[in-house]
């Protein structure tokens, strides 16, 4: 009896060890490969997310320890901060106009290019170039000169006897110059549209035209419905990026969002609060509200998508 029990104990220990060692053998290699990402994910993403959530309830100036203030930052955002209101207005105007215009251009050009015409690679490259260079400081500097009082646009208008304003320094127009800059970069959604258009089977058009459907009808009844997944994807990516637009506004307004806050993009305002005025707590609250906005937008898009996005199944 006792011998048997001891045997069993030894046996159990051995099998327990083998469970552990088997687990180690099965899972460790995967985790070793995942390790750099895991460290980055925990140290540079999850940790900072938690800490920024905490900071959003504090006053923190980097030098003295963070001081708990409860909901004060959020209260100030919604009730007592004209710059926040301006930043919201500017950002929403920007998203609302730049994204649909950009996508419309992208789709239009993609359809023209999808006709299997000569010179497709060249056109595609030319239209894509501005997107590629778009985020650079050089392009923002260029834009500033194009829309300056004596810039290209006004030189062009002068040919028709029109004396244009200084677009960049006029609060009525400055945001629109940035919207135009964004639309100018329609290249990358265009390329995604082109790839999507290529997936549409040609015989659907042939069948439709046999049934007497004109081009316009084919566009609305075949192209658009079959392209909705791509439209959906482009719209989400472009909107999320537009919410975070920073560099052009920073360069064009010298980092201030001037004139009269007309180019005070949300990301620019957040940057200034954090790194010019060192109101890190308030800036964290701004960041969390941005996250909330983007999450709401994404959730809303996915929820409504089942009514207008068609997946072929």
């Amino acid at each position: 009896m006792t011998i048997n029990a001891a045997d069993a104990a030894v046996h159990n220990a051995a099998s327990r060890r083998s469970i552990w060692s088997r687990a180690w053998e099965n899972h460790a290699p995967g985790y070793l490969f995942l390790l750099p990402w895991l460290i980055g994910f925990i140290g540079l993403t999850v940790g900072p997310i938690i800490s920024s959530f905490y900071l959003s309830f504090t006053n923190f100036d980097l030098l003295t320890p963070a001081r708990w203030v409860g909901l004060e930052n959020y209260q100030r955002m919604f009730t007592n901060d004209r710059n926040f209101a301006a930043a919201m207005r500017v950002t929403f105007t920007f998203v609302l106009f730049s994204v649909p215009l950009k996508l419309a251009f992208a789709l239009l050009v993609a359809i023209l290019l999808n006709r299997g015409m000569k010179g497709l690679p060249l056109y595609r490259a030319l239209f894509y170039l501005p997107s590629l260079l778009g985020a650079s400081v050089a392009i923002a500097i260029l834009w500033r000169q194009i829309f300056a009082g004596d810039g290209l646009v006004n030189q062009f208008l002068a040919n028709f006897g029109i004396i244009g304003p200084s677009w960049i320094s006029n609060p009525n127009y400055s945001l629109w110059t940035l919207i135009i800059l964004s639309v100018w970069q329609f290249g990358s959604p265009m390329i995604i549209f082109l790839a999507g258009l290529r997936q549409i089977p040609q015989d659907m058009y042939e069948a439709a035209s046999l049934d007497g459907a004109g081009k316009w009808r084919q566009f609305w009844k075949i192209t658009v419905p079959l392209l909705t997944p791509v439209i959906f994807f482009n719209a989400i990516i472009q909107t999320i990026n537009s919410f975070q637009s920073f560099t052009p506004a920073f360069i064009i307004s010298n980092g201030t969002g001037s004139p009269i806050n007309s180019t005070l993009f949300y990301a620019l305002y957040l940057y200034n609060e954090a790194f010019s005025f060192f109101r890190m707590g308030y800036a964290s609250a701004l960041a969390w509200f941005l996250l909330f906005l983007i999450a709401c937008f994404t959730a809303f898009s996915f929820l409504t998508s089942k009514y207008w996005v068609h997946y072929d199944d």
Partner: protein
Amino acid sequence: MRKRVFSVLAHIVLISASILMLYPLLWLLAASFKPDNQIFNTGIWPTADWSLDAYFRGWNAMRVSFSVFFMNSFVIAILSIIGNLFACSMAAYAFARMEFKFKNFWFAMMLMTLMLPSQVTIIPQYVLFRDLGWINTILPLVVPKFLAVDAFFIFLMVQFFRGIPRELDEAARMDGAGPWRIYWKIMLPLSTPVLVTAAIFTFIWTWDDFFGPLIFLNRMQDYTVTLGLRTFVDSTGESDFGGLFAMSVLSIVPIFLFFLIFQRFLIEGIATTGMKR
């Protein structure tokens, strides 16, 4: 006949659109070769004398010359490429080919970081890097790449790895190859297209990056090209347009060259995965 007319019309629309798209860039290029007094009051092309004056003037206009800025940008870009390729491909290999506990959970987490706005993490990251004494070094810009923070590339590589026939690595396993050997000798060599795409986009994005350097680099000798250019605008005010335009042109030359050489990869990369921007 109708088809012919339509195609001519389409070409006309496309050609005019291309001109409209490219005119600002051509104007910038031309302006950088003009004498200063001609930049704004003549047509696009330099009338009489082309000159490289603006380039020499701009290159040395500031306390620190542009050669330093270019050097800094190149070092950061190259280290970022190495980091991204290594760390992202390792994670992607784990997600695509290995079995381990909570794999799906981690994969979902990775996908969620794709949506996360960088503004949410930047302030605590700044505090962390400051406590580590990394401000005014390139570490905050480079180390995250070695920790696969650009999850986008992981996603890209997972998609690609899944397309590689499983028989290949299973055969290697039969022959006694361990995971590291399979990753290094089979998966990576077969993944050149996706690695090249990731390298190109890493280069372009780090080269263009303005936000990161703006936050982490405060001494002029550490500046990247983008920061140097921005300082140029501020320090010379609006007086040296020639120099400013010349340096603007130079700052986009590396991107432009990449574009010319790797156009096919870039466009395929965009088309198949839907890159940002």
